[in-house]
């Protein structure tokens, strides 16, 4: 899928149930209490809003500590015990944060599938991948025995696992990393979710397999009409697969716009810096050609969330006294939203006009079958 698409008008596929968005997040805040109860609390996510339609890919981008993973874990209900969440998360018409725990687990289990960074860690080593998926089918769809196994094999086949009947008998350690991630995606799809959360799903994989797995995820979004939230620190990956990109900084959304427009004309200085630091998404030459110089570096550290003024101001070359005193609100800007007092003036900043990243990536051109791996039937 090429980068682009509209900001809020919905995904490319027709939604099965158009009465509500697939996922609606309002004013989500995640606060970590310090473990020993003496230190100050840490505000990891400081009030973010997100709306996801079916068939849409939204990418959360940001450096470590920006709150993108905390956002994802809050949606998945996997935050540690010392974290507290507020705001609302509407999934399948329920505000899941307001539901009692049991009902919340049920709605989440049905409505959200999650793909983790390391498929070696997210698949239990003690069950065959088939029994793992069977288990989910039993809990959420009441399938058992041969019916469950047939559906498991169909899911595996849909996720590009060749010879699914045989692969279903395998333990995770008998599969390659790419196959494992395909199995993990099949498991995430098993309950028939409306939303898939993917936390750096390709970071642990080889470069060629990365493209295949991204391709698979994007294809599933189009075919199944699910909404995909893709968390990545790699703006190039986000640009390659997402319809919309939300750039996070210090627990807030700095800029949220259609992917193509955001890559071409960033509205926030932080996006410019991120874009400059992104590696082009293409295989490197064997002799290392292609990356000759050091990538530009964004100096300084991320400010803690919740301070006064714009949290990016200390690192921003455009910051004024006004920026340091008053935090900019998230306001409409060229098809999306940007939180920057000087968003309109950004085009004058040197370096903005000459993007080093090419967002047009021939991702769809990489056919999984063309590369091939052992046991791939086609």
């Amino acid at each position, binding site marked *: 899928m090429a980068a682009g698409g509209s900001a809020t008008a919905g995904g490319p596929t027709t939604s099965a149930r158009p009465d509500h968005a697939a996922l609606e997040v309002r004013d989500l805040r995640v606060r970590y209490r310090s473990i020993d109860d003496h230190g100050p609390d840490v505000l990891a996510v400081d009030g973010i809003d997100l709306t996801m339609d079916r068939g849409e890919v939204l990418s959360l981008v940001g450096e470590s500590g920006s709150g993108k993973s905390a956002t994802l874990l809050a949606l*998945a*209900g*996997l935050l540690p015990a010392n974290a507290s969440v507020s705001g609302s998360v509407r999934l399948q018409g329920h505000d899941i944060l307001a539901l009692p725990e049991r009902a919340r*687990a*049920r709605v*989440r*289990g*049905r409505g*959200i*599938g*999650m793909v*983790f960074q*390391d498929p070696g*860690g*997210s*698949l*239990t*080593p*003690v*069950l065959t991948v088939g029994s793992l998926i069977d*288990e*989910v089918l039993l*809990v*959420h769809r009441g399938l058992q025995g041969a019916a469950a196994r047939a559906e498991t094999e169909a899911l595996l086949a849909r996720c590009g696992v060749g010879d699914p009947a045989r692969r279903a008998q395998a333990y995770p*350690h008998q599969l390659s990393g790419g196959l494992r991630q395909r199995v*993990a995606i099949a*498991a995430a799809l*098993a*309950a028939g979710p409306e939303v898939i959360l993917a936390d750096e799903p390709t970071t642990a994989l080889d470069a060629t397999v990365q493209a295949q797995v991204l391709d698979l995820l994007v294809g599933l979004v189009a075919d199944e009409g699910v909404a995909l939230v893709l968390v990545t620190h790699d703006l190039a990956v986000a640009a390659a697969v997402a319809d919309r990109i939300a750039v996070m900084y210090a627990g807030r959304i700095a800029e949220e716009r259609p992917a193509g427009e955001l890559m071409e004309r960033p509205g926030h200085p932080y996006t410019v810096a991120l874009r400059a630091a992104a590696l082009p998404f293409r295989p490197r030459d064997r002799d290392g050609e292609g990356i000759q110089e050091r990538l530009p570096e964004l100096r300084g550290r991320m400010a803690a969330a919740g301070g006064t003024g714009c949290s990016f101001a200390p690192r921003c070359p455009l910051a004024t006294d006004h920026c340091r005193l008053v935090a900019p609100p998230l306001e409409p800007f060229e098809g999306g939203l940007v939180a920057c007092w000087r968003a309109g003036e950004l085009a004058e900043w040197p370096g903005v006009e000459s993007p080093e990243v090419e967002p047009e990536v021939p991702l769809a051109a990489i056919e999984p079958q063309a590369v091939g791996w052992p046991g791939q039937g086609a």
Partner: protein
Amino acid sequence: MTRSGWVGAIGLGLLVAMALLAPVIKPRDPLDLVGRPLLEPFADPRFLLGTDALGRDVLAQLLYSARVSLVVGLAAAAGAIGIGIGVGTVAGFLGGRVDGILMRISEAFQTVPTFLLALALLSALGASTANVVLAIALSSWPATARLVRAEVLSLRQREYVDAARLAGLGPLTVAFREVLPGALQPVVALVGVTVGAAILVESALAFLGLGDPNQISWGVMISNGRQAIRVAPFLVVIPGVCVALAILSVSLLGDGLAARLAPQRRYLS
């Protein structure tokens, strides 16, 4: 498997063969009075290991005792390990208050020495083979529970537990289906020690006369032989050697199996 593991397997195999073949080798009741009392071993070809103070065949007693000692030892160890695995998995996986309560209970059991606890339980329950098994199992589960809990505590941090939780699987399903099997490897090493300890406790209880009064066992033989220890030390030495061999065999076998499973373990962690 390691060489010592094979030695243990052979030793245990011999003991099991003794127990199984007892009625074939010595069809008569081992408690029958069959010959002159206190015959030395090898003195009479009918009684290879001699006779005791009442003229009962020592070899026959030894063979039938192997049945009691092995069955009680294995059953008690299985009970202890079963309780330990259940408690350890629940405590380690659920954590928090449940963990606190279960671990305080296990500490309460651990503060009393295993043997004294078994002794006290058996005095309260009354002497029978089933009660011996129960008393030993109830007094020796905490070690397994603590080991399993520690393993489960580390495994429950894994992402696959998060994945299963998000998928809406119940905590006990996740704990016993997805986490527990990965935590069992170190328990294998403990099996040998637990079985050995159970055999020893059984013998000690029998020695004190707290076993089933109608059944002969190595502990009973040592107890009976004690009175004649000055004139016929073999009555104590022979069953004593059997107890030692049994414990040594199961310990060596347990270690051998654990070593055998180690490479897989390295993969899992």
